[in-house]
């Protein structure tokens, strides 16, 4: 006969061990690349008549 499992205790594992270090590094790398290229083009615009 089937048993009811009213008192079943299963824990949902929340994965909290994932590191965002790589993501942080790539986001800022892209960010700085955009800022440097933007500033380069802007300074070219400013320096020419």
């Amino acid at each position: 006969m089937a048993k009811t499992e009213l008192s079943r205790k299963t824990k949902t594992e929340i994965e909290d061990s994932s590191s965002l270090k790589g993501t942080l590094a790539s986001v800022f790398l892209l960010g700085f690349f955009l800022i440097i290229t933007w500033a380069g083009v802007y300074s070219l615009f400013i320096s020419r008549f």
Partner: protein
Amino acid sequence: MHMHKFEKAWLTFGIGSLLVFLTVLGVSAFYLGNQPPSCLATIDPEKVDTTAPFNEPGLKKVEGKDWDYELVYVASAFSYSPAEVEVPYGAKVKIIATTKDVVHGFEVAGSNINMMLEPGYISEHITTFDKTGEYLIVCNEYCGVGHHMMSSKIKVVE
């Protein structure tokens, strides 16, 4: 809502950069007065030759304006009038240009002057020529078989 501190960092960075870029754009437009070259000024393209200032293309000294000279150009297939012009070094010049026929380009190579000339519209650009030399003006909008031969010259002289 829980947010990872790294997420907060890059969101702050991204939104901050956006604000900086938009501020630069706003200052350029509303404080420095930068506007698109063709800004609401129109002309009858059939009557360019008889409409001032296009009836006398070339460099003209003006008084009582924010700029010292007005440089008027008329473009048509496949040339610019005037074909060559001498501008004194350090002069603040308003370039005023239009076209008689089709869409032409107006690019002073190696400078920020780059406009589209559309029939019926007047394109303008104010600049100070603070570097001497010869500057080539080229058409950068394909206008027909002679497009590649369409050019003019600005000489900035002491």
